[in-house]
């Protein structure tokens, strides 16, 4: 990523030298370099400053990508996100997220869900904006194809198959030396086919990879960085989650491309 920026910035940097002495003097005072290397300093300083501005400015805003307009609590309700499993399947650590239970079925608190989903989508958007690798994981055969299609459409990666042992923890051997691991893992269902916690959650925690996970009332939310309590069994709910994540990632990537173009235009002007 840095090399790409440098390559793009070289041409713009040369033009900047011809632009004005104001920048030159500013560089002098900042870096205290000799006159001979001023050209190089001028080339690199505005470039990195603009890049830093692109990367750091979104972090100062609470909702830079306006993700709150993507969903409302009513949408969540209509997609039946609030439906959990029966009382017997309840996980102890999910009790804070439950609104209550009706006829033995646990109801998930949609206010908390909305807030946590907003945070999770915001985090995903920032990761996508900074060019991170996002991996969608689920072990539900019913929705495997849907998730793989979603991943392909937003240009990210998916793993809805049997999880081999050392995929994250033994990556140089499993893949090739020099492989880059995912920067964010999104679990659309945190349980595997035998109702145990997915191995990927523990492995991601070991490898310091942040996780976003849709946790149902029978799941363990402890190791997940951004848990989103919600239903993971209904097709409507899963389609809604896929749509939301796809829209956030596409929005973030488009925004990044826009900023790069603007930077290119402002640099060449």
């Amino acid at each position, binding site marked *: 990523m840095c*090399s*790409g920026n440098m390559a793009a910035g070289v041409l713009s940097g040369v033009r900047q030298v011809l632009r004005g002495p104001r920048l030159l003097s500013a560089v002098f005072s900042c870096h205290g370099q000799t006159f001979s290397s001023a050209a190089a300093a001028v080339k690199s300083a505005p470039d990195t400053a603009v890049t830093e501005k692109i990367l750091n400015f979104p972090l100062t805003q609470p909702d830079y990508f306006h993700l709150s307009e993507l969903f409302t609590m009513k949408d969540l309700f209509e997609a039946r996100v609030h439906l959990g499993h029966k009382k017997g399947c309840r996980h102890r650590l999910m009790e804070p997220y439950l609104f209550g239970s009706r006829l033995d079925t646990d109801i998930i608190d949609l206010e908390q869900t909305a807030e946590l989903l907003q945070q999770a989508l915001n985090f995903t958007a920032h990761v996508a904006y900074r*060019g991170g690798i996002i991996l969608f994981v689920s072990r539900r055969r019913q929705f495997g*194809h849907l998730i793989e299609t979603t991943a392909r459409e937003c240009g990210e*990666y*998916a793993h809805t*198959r049997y999880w*081999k042992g050392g995929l994250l923890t033994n990556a140089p051997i499993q893949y090739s030396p020099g492989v*880059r691991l995912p920067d964010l893992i999104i679990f659309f269902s945190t349980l595997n086919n035998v109702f145990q916690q997915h191995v990927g959650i523990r492995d991601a925690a070991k490898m310091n990879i942040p996780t976003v996970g849709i946790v149902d009332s029978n799941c363990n939310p402890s190791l997940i960085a951004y848990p989103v309590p919600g239903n993971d069994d209904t097709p409507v709910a899963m389609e809604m989650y896929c749509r939301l994540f796809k829209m956030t990632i596409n929005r973030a990537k488009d925004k990044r491309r826009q900023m790069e173009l603007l930077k290119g235009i402002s640099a060449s002007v």
Partner: protein
Amino acid sequence: MAASGCRGVRSILWKYGSCGKNFCLSRSKTVPQLPVRQICVSSSLWKKNLAAAGPQKFTQEFIDKQVEEFEIGKRHLANMMGEDPETFTQEDIDRSIAYLFPSGLFEKRARPVMKHPDEIFPKQTAVQWDAEGRPFHFLFYTGRQSYYSLLHDVYEKILAMERHQDKMRNKGLFASETKQILLTGSRWQLKEEIEEYLVENISDHGYMRLIQLLEKLLSMPYCSLEEDFILKFRKQLEVQSSKHEIPALQHDPQGVAFSVADGRRKTAKASITLRDSGSGNITINGRNYLHCFPLLQDREQLMFPLHFVGMLGRFDVEGSVEGSGHSAQAGALRLAISRALLSFVSEGEVERMRQAGLLTADPRIRERKKPGQEGARKKFTWKKR
């Protein structure tokens, strides 16, 4: 790493040496300040584990340079041998190298060789990700991207076909007797063939899963839409009867059609000429077959091919046979007659003859005697004590 390992070992030795110094001095005063007890002397500590490093990796620039050097060297070699550098082929290179560097080594692979670098350096898998480290394929992190993407595509086609079916049903154009794909004469590709196609290893379970998905695709009414895709995974079986070499039908100066064929059984070799003259004479080695084969069983073997196609009295059989015993000679003659008959008989009859076993050469030969035994199978008398 080797240097630091060295230093580590030496520091261990020095530490223990300083402890052992005290009791060492009591023995003799002239002992220098050297470590007494040596803890680790093996060189494996500072030698690199070469086996664990894996196969040597060559960069693309290195291989490009090698290719360049090979091309220049090829031209020099051509000039040396006095030949045209433009039309200097690999055989010429091999010949020239064998001439310039004569080697008496028995192992062909140890002799000097000059080949294109692509043949010498092992092929390395292309890097699977771009400059930023992002993999190209969306299923890269599964570990088996080609296989899983194939499953994904097949399932996609199944879903598309179901949607098409629903559309036709809504329009009222649904017809249950649609065109079916011809599957006779072909089989599913084997696991090895699919592994070759995908350039990846598949487990048996994975292969079964793929075949199940393809069968599901085949079971749907509109499967003819994906015919090309499915036929990629079917292999045509060769028709067995087309493999037989039919001897050419030749003609006498008198206009009589005849054909010549050979047959073998154990060590007996037979050669037969079938003439379409009309009489049913059988002459072997110049004598009547009654003299050659007094046993009925052998004569039956001779008659069987002609009796099977129903042309007993039509042909004149003239044959020569040598080697082995009477039964093997009869068998050799039978095979030769059947092969000669192929040129007089139709395609369907050929298949019938093949299924009757007339055209199959009997592979049984005498089994050798083994040392420590009486014969091929018979053992010496077994004594308990």
